[in-house]
Structure formats: C-alpha cells, structure tokens
C-alpha cells in the first residue's frame, strides 16, 4: 500500500473541522490559523497529486487505495484519481486555500472595515471544511456508495453556511431552495444507482458498488435507456443544468463570499463530474441515446444564462447566471460525446471553477467595503482597488474566452466538438460569447471605471488586504498558465477522455 495521499487530502479538512470546534470560540486567530494551515497543506498535497499524475504516470487511475467497509454489501472505501478528476482535486485545493484567505476577516479599526467572516469564524470554518472534505471525497471516490456518501456531506453544510452566515434578505429562502433541489436531485440519482447495483447482482452475481467493476456489469441497452436520464439529470441539477438551475443563482447571492466561491467554483463541478462519471461512464448506451436531449438543454442553458446575466443589476446575480451559462458549456461539451467536446468540458470545469471563484472573491471585497453589489450604484473602484480591478479584468477575459487564457483552451475544443455533432447548435451557442463579452465589459466599465458616486465615496473605500491580493494572484496564476501552456492540463484530461471514449465504444 502506498502512502494514502488521497485519504489524507479528503479527511484532513474534516479532522481540522473537529479540531477547530475544540478551540475556544473567542480564540479567533487560532481558528483561522488552523484553517489556513490545513488549506495550505491540502493545496500542496493536491498540487503534488496533480504534478505526479501529469509528469509521472499519465495513465488510468492513480494513487488507488482500497479499504473494506461493509464487505457483505460490497461497499468499500476506494479512492483514486484519473485525468478527469485530478484537475478537479487541485481546483478544490485552490478554492479552499483562497476561500480561507479572503474570509480571514481581520477587523480594521482605522477604516471601520470589516471584511471576511467576523461572526463565529470557528463554526464557519468547521462547516466549510466539512464541505470541502465532502467535495474532495466525491472527486476521488471510485465506489458509488462512497460517492453518494461524500456527495451528501458536501451538500448538507451548504444549508447551514447560507442560512447562518448568508445575506440577511434572502438567506432562508435560498438555503431551503438549494437544499431541496439538491436533495431531490441526489435522491433521484440514488434510486438509479441502487437499481444499477441490483441489476449488476442479477447479471453477474457480484455485489459491489465499485464503479470500475460496474463498467462491465453488462447493463442491457433498454435498461440504460430508461435509467440514464434520471441518473444524469439527478446529478446535473447540482451542475446547474437548465431547467433545474434556479437554486444556483439564488444560492450564490445569499451565500457569504467564501461559500459562493465554493458553490460556483467546486460544487457545481461536483454535479457535472458525477453526472459524467456515473451517468455517461456507467450507462454509455443511454448517453448515446439521450445525448440530443442533454445537448438541447445545455445549448439553451448557455444562451439563456448569458441573456439573464446581461440584465442583472446585482453583481452576484450576474455572476450566478454567467455560471449557469458557463456550466451549460461543460454539459454541452459532455453531451457531444466526442474527443474535443469532452476535453473542452474537462478543462472548462477547472477554468470556470477558478474564474468564478475569482469573480465572487472580488465581488465580496467590493461589497464589504462599499456595502452594495448593485452595479448602477457602484463606480470608480479602479482607483481605490487597482489590484482587484486587474484581477477582475483577467477573470473577464477568461470568461469571454480570450485566447491566452484558460477560457479559450476550454471553449475552443467545445465549439469544435459541437460543430462536429450539430453545427447549428454551435452557431446558436456562440451567441453567448457575444453576450458574455457585453455584460462583462459593461460591468467593468460601470463598476471599475465610471466616476465614483457620492454614496460610495462616503465609505472611504480603502485597498484590499495583502491576503486578498495573494488569493487573487493565485487564482489568476492558474488561468494564465493554462491559457499560455495548455499542455500543463490538456494531456491529462485527454487520458480521462480516452477512458470515457473507450466505454462509449471507441467513438
């Protein structure tokens, strides 16, 4: 047995959560210290896994660990990463690290500035880390039961985080809406998964939740036609799939900054990833049968989300709907079931995760200082927060798919893949590129470069803190490095895609 690095990555945040709860509540600095240390270690470990995969192995599942848990039912704790999941593990590490940085929450006496989390940081970080552990668990699980187990762990703390620390006006509505959507979605998928489990037992006599085992369970075509849609869509709800997307922007808006970052950055990836891993990979015939429907939904989402984002006046709603649009591109890429589309989807998951995390981080910084997120009420931020401005512009360029940034490396293959399947849809979906450019540019023009309104001037906005800058720089680093040198990520995603294509019958 190798060094159990994936288990450590997964359980370390949970252990840290327990440790933090044991620290007295008034020792806020210690709590934050533990949080940052844990996040840093997790980031380094996930980065190490990523680099090992990229430079060393670059094939199949790596770092596989397996421990029996309930052998009678064929449930075991089985971890491993492939080319699809390794970038997402790294993404989670990045979002966790930057999320802690921007939630640090020192109270600045001189400027009466309260940024980040002031209220009960101990409980906040504990729940956040519980969530993070769940997310890591989903990405590395090779056991279907464990995947569901971690999935629920990842979803549940969201309710508390939003309902307790969220935006007062909508937090209860949004938290409930989000929880209901996600639990209903996962229950639907769970039913599908249990049916798959029993059918495998009937077909092969093996009682096992091992997903690699299930790939060869011999599900009949008609079985796959029936069960693909519930399983795929059940998960894709968490990926913000149209028309089940509405929990997502509401949730973004109500959530505190770090939770928005997690929510858009990694939670939505969770849905898309699980839909791919369980829906497409275990039920490939069903995927082929229904890909037109998924493609249609995704195509609508891409344009639809962009249109709505275009008219939002709340920055968080704008970013929330832009996430619907961008996650639509992920699902669109998946639904092509061809090499280019899937590779683009894989890269887009990472790229979008980093990009929205950045957007929400900066929006949070602006809100903490100006006490508004309304685009028409904002202005002149560029003068007081130049670093954040540059960060937002870089994020904007990624968002609109500018070459040289990660967004292009992701979107270009998706469009090529879609063109290969259905050129009309590529044309329709490309409308979103124009609208995205429009709302991003108009937002930048108004919020950052127009004259600062008097209301805002009263708050004597100061610059962001050093920790904020580190967070922004970290996120920008990944978007640029992938844009400039796609070979740091694309070959890896391709290994994962090859595996998927093999299951789809070498298509």
């Amino acid at each position: 047995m190798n060094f159990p690095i994936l288990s450590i990555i997964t359980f370390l945040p949970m252990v840290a959560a327990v440790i933090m709860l044991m620290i007295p509540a008034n020792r806020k600095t210690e709590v934050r210290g533990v949080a940052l240390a844990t996040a840093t270690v997790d980031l380094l470990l996930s980065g190490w896994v990523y680099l090992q995969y990229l430079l060393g192995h670059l094939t199949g599942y790596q770092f596989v660990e397996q421990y029996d848990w309930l052998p009678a039912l064929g449930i075991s704790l089985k971890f491993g990463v492939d080319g699809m999941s390794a970038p997402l593990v790294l993404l989670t590490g990045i979002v966790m690290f930057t999320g802690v940085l921007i939630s640090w929450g020192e109270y600045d006496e001189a400027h009466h500035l309260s940024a980040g989390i002031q209220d009960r940081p101990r409980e906040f970080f504990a729940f956040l880390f519980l969530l993070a552990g769940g997310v890591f668990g989903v990405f590395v699980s090779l056991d279907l039961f464990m995947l569901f187990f971690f999935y629920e762990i990842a979803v549940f703390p969201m309710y508390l985080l939003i309902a307790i620390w969220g935006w007062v006006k909508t937090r209860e509505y949004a938290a409930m809406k989000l929880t209901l959507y996600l639990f209903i979605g996962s229950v639907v998928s769970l039913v599908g998964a249990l049916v798959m489990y029993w059918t495998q037992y009937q077909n092969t006599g093996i009682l096992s939740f091992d997903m690699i085992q299930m790939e060869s369970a011999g599900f009949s075509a008609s079985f796959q036609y029936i069960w693909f849609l519930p399983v795929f869509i059940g998960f894709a709800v968490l990926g913000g799939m149209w028309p089940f997307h509405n929990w997502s922007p509401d949730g973004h808006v109500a959530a505190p900054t770090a939770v928005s970052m997690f929510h858009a950055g990694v939670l939505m990836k969770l849905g898309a990833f699980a839909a791919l891993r369980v829906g497409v990979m275990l039920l490939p015939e069903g995927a082929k049968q229904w890909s037109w429907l998924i493609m249609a939904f995704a195509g609508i989402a891409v344009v639809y989300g962009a249109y709505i984002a275009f008219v939002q006046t709340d920055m968080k709603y704008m970013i929330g709907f832009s996430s619907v649009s961008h996650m639509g591109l992920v699902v669109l890429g998946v639904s092509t079931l061809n090499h280019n589309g899937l590779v683009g989807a894989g890269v887009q998951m990472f790229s979008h995760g980093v990009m929205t995390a950045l957007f929400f981080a900066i929006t949070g910084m602006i809100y903490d200082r100006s006490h508004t997120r309304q685009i028409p009420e904002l202005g002149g931020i560029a003068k007081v927060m130049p670093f954040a401005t540059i960060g937002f512009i870089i994020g904007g360029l990624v968002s609109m798919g500018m070459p040289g940034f990660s967004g292009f490396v992701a979107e270009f293959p998706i469009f090529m893949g879609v063109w290969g399947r259905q050129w009309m849809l590529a044309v329709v979906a490309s409308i979103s590129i124009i609208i995205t450019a429009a709302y991003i540019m108009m937002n930048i023009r108004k919020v950052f470069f127009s004259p600062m309104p008097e209301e805002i001037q009263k708050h004597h906005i100061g610059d962001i803190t050093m920790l904020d800058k580190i967070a922004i720089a970290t996120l920008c680093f990944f978007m640029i490095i992938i844009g400039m040198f796609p070979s740091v990520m694309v070959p890896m995603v391709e290994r994962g895609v090859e595996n998927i294509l093999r299951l789809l019958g070498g298509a």
Partner: protein
Amino acid sequence: MATELLIWLIPLPPVLAFFLIVLFTNKNKALSHSVAISAAFLSWLGSMVVFVRALGVEHLGEHPFESAINWLPTGDTWLKVGVLIDPLSAAVLFFVAWTVLMIFIYSVGYHNYGQPAGDHDHAGLPPHGATVHGHAVPSVEPMYSRFFAFIGLFAFGMYTLVVSDNLLTLFVGWEIMGLCSYLLIGFWFGKPSARNAAVKAFMTTRIGDVFMLLGISFLYYATGTLSYREIFNEETLHVLATVPSGVFGLSAAGLIAILLFIGTIGKSAQFPLHVWLPDAMEGPTPVSAMIHAATMVSAGVYAVIRMFPLLSAGYEGHGLTAAMSVVAFIGAFTAIFAATIAVAQNDIKRVLAYSTISQLGFMIAALGIGAYVAAVFHLITHAFFKALLFLGSGSVIHGMEHGVLHTGNHSVDPQDMFNMGGLRKKMPITFWTFLIGGFALSGFPLVTAGFWSKDEILADAWGHGHMAVFITLAVAAFLTAFYTMRQITLTFLGEARTKEAEHAHETPFTMTVPLMILSVFAIGYGWVGIPEHFPLLGGLVPNWFHEFVGGTLAEHPEAVEFSIIPLATSLFVALGGLFFGWLAYRNVKSVAQDKLQIPLLKNKYYFDEAYDYLFIKPAIWFSEVFVSKWMDKGFIDGILHIFGPATGGLGTFIRDKFDVPVVNRFFGDGSADATYWIGKNLRPIQTGRIQQYLILSLIILVVIGGLLFALLVRSA
C-alpha cells in the same frame, strides 16, 4: 542569428515593454517611453533584418522561413503554433514595423512629454493645460506611462498576427488587438463618450470574431489542421471546394471563407459592422493611427488576403466563386457608402475615419475580384499614407489646442475643420506632409503611392470585366479626392476662421519627424509596383512588388494587360475630385455655406439609431422581459412556486380531511375514547363482592358452554 529564431523574437520586445512598464517603470515617464520606443525599435530592427533576408531568397513563396512548436494537444496530434515569413508576411511586416515605430515616437510629443503636470488634470481625462508664470501651456498626459504600456501590447498583438503560420495564433493576435483597442479607445475613460465608444468597438468587432471562431472550428473540423501551409495545398483545397457544407448550397471552402470574412468585416469595419470605427476617434490620436493604419484594420484585410486561396478555391479565372462575390459586393458597397458619408463630416478625424472604411472597401473589393496583388499593394500604401494623415491630423489638433489654450476659450472644438483655415502658414511641416498624404489618398497621378495602388485595382476590375465594381470604385475614388481636398482646403488654405486658428503653433520635432519619414513612403512606395506596360514609366523600374508578393500564391497571378480606359479614369477622378473639392470650398467661411451638410449623410444614414432599434433594444427586451421575467422568474420559478403552495395545500388537505378526522379523530382519539368508554361502563360491575363475581362467572360459563355446544354438536 538564425532567421527563424529572429522571427520568433520579433513580437516579444513590445510585450516585454508592456510588463516592464506596468510592473516597474510606471512612475517614471522618461523611462517608460524609453522602454517602449526601444522595444518598438528592436522589433523594427528584427523586422528589417528578416525583410532583407527574405528578399535574398529565391522563390520565397515555395520555401518560406518557417518553424513551429506543439501547443494544444488534440487527440493523436498537436495543434502547432509557429512562425512563417513568406512574401506576403514579409511585405506586411515591413509596413507594420515602420508605422508602429513612427507612432511610438510621435506619441511622446503628442502626450506633451516635458510639459508640467496639469493644474486640474485627472487620470482618465485629456490633459487641460497648466499655468506657468501666468501663461497657459499644454500639460503632460497624467497616464503617460500607461499609454505606452498599452500600445506596446497592441504592437505585440499585431506582430504576433503577422508572423504566425496558422489561424490559431492569428486569432490570438487578433483578440489581443481587440482588447487593446478597447483599452485605448477608452483610454480617457473619464469621458462617457470614450467609455461607450470602447464598448461599442469591442462588441461590434466581437460579433465578427465569433463568426471567425466558428469558421476556424469548421475549418479544423474539416481538415484537422489550422496551419496555412497545410490547408493551402492543392489537394485540401480541392476537397474543400467540392464538399458541400450543407448551408445555403455553399461548398465547405465557401462557407469557411465567408465565416472568416465576417471576422474581417468586424475588424476592418466593413458594412454592416462599420459603426464602431468612427466612434473609435474618441481615443488619443496616435491610437487612431494605430487602429486605422498600422494594426487593427490592416489585420482584418491581411487575414482575408491570407485566406484568399480558400476564398478562391474553385475559381478558374472567370466566374467568381460565391464567396468571392460576397466579398466583392461588400467591399465595393462599403467603398462608396463610406465615401458619401465622409463628404459631410466636419470633424477632421471623422473624415479620415470614413475614408479608412472606404479605402478598406477598395482592398476588399479588389480581393473579391481576384486582384490579389493589387489588394496587398493598396493595403501597404494605404497604411503609410493613412498613418501619415492621422498623425498629421493629430498634429493639427495639437496646434489648435495650443491656440485654444492661448485664447482660453474652451468652447472652441479644436477638431472641427470649420474652426480652422490658413494653418499652412502656422504649421508648414504639418501642411506639406498632410498634403502629401492627402494627395496619396486621392491618387494624385504618377507621384504618389496611392495612385499606383488604386490604379492597379481599377485596371484589374476593368481588365477582368467586372464593370459594376469598376464603376462603383471609380465613383468612390472621385468622392475620395473630393473630400480630401475639401479637408485640405478647409484646414490649411484660405484665412484663419477663428482666433484659435490664428494662434495655432507648429508641433515639436518628435511629432514632425515621423510625419516626414512617413511622407517619404507615401510617395516612394508606389514606385516599387509600376506596371511593366505602363506608358513611358513602365519597365524603367522593374515591377518588383508584383513579382515578390505574387510569389505567395501557388499559382503566380498574371499581371493584367494595360488598357488606356482605367488609366484615363483614374487620372480623371483623382484630378477632377481634387479640383472640385478646391473649387467648392475655397471661399467657404462658415458651416452654413457648406451645401453638403445633408442630414442623412451627417447622421451616417442613421445606422447607429437603426441598430439601436433593430438589435440593441430587442436584445435587451429579450433578456429582460422574455428570458428573465417570463421564462426564468415567471415560468420556471413559477412552477416551483406553484409546487411550494401546492405541496403546502396538499399537506393542509391531508391534515384537514384525512389526518385530523380519520387518523386522529377516528383511529387515534377514537380508540382512546372507546377504551375509556369501555372502561367506564365496565366499572359498575367491579363491585368487589365474591358472590356477584361467581354469579357472573356462572352466567358466562353457561353462555359459552351453550355456544360451544351449539357449534360443536351442529358441526359434528
């Protein structure tokens, strides 16, 4: 140094300058412009070395300098990126290097380097001037360093685009320039008009870019490569030309070419995406020169010239392909359409803006009718004389601003030509260089570069029998000469019409020297492309340009036969236009006397308003009302909000109609009540008397015994 390596290095200095300025020298103006100009100089030097070496290669078209590396992995192969210098890119590199360097140097003077900081200047607004010893003097641009950083990035985009050997890096450079145009048009972001113009420019070109991206996707899907050399071989082109695309009956090549051409329509401001270019005048003048001559619009034309083999796939020398017809139509229409608008503009820069659109139309039309070499030739001569004209107009504005500062009357618009007049005496160098540029634009015969390139386009149109294009372009050429002379007359000739014009002042040498250098090219560059059969002059100088650039194509294009009619036409339209322009405006004293102030033309055929009603307002309505309000909030959330109360309603129903009466009352309370009732009614018999119990037992025994007896005996 190996030529290939040198080509790789050409784009790098400006981008290094960008980072150096942003990160380190931001505070120091002298250091910032030194870094930027040194970078432009290094790129210029590299370009010249490469150009000279390219001249020394025989059959450069078949054996270009090229080198490529792997960039984006795609399945089994890699999407390669690389550099390529063939005759076309060498020729383009030459003019880009010269104009970029001149614009960089010019910017030093334009932004008032060496002047004091302004009294009330703010970052994001044009400098308003400073007071020194009670005199108003120009003040230095507050964001001086930032300007040089941005144009460095801009130059990087253009160099990348020119040296790249594939559509992907071309697109990268293309988009970088789109971004830079946004940043630079909106450079004075304190002005609302500049902010709007920046967004408009970005968005309009972006529409074109999306189609271009689709074209690239389709091309990659169809051929599996994006490298020019691999696409433009005979086999691939033949396949593309014969495979139907399934769209409007076009061949694959035709559809790809048209999609890519839409990108050019956006970038080179052709009808119907021309609306952004005149507004782009909101940027500082060196930016206008950068966009209009050296880089962005030229990049659009360059891209479509690059794609010519695709455009003309299936073309046999007669009968234009569908894609070529589209291109020719758009080009010719734009040429005349923009020229008519230009005659009614009063802003010195706006006249030039529309003339750019019109001249680009000439090039596009030339390409559409297969006049490949003529299009390249006009692209290059136009870049030189239009850079000259823009920088000249900037010099005029600068001189006028000097006058405005002198009189202190800030209500006078220093860009309105009707506020000028008689500037030839005040600004002699600017006058003479502007005159050269203007004459080149008009196609003044024999001397200027513009004559030779425009004449070649007309000769090609005539020679290949494209009469409609020929007549359209001839009329456009006449209008060009007319509005150019109108501009020169109003600006420089006659007497000063305002006090400000009287106090205008010649600009510093950093501005005038680039003007002089560019005027050398505005005249001299035409002589490298004199047709061989031209009367008297033909053959004196070999038609080097045709030989050289024509070598880019696999099939060397033949020079068109000489004919007197197109020559006579170009002589007539150039001289006639100039003469009438002078005649009509020599005595005009005020705008009221101008007979061409037609509202339809002044308002640019109301395109901005029409687009607002046709596209922008419906798009906003669609997003705001249809998608957001009806679909998302109304329908999807509506269903959710029906489910919410419905679930609640169902719950209430179950509670009230079933749970409370049936489960609760009947089973729950009912069983309790029944138990209680039974207990209560049984209580009287619990007397505690043994006798009664015995009697009761006896009665029960008798009853049960009777029952048992009856049942058992009966059944037995």
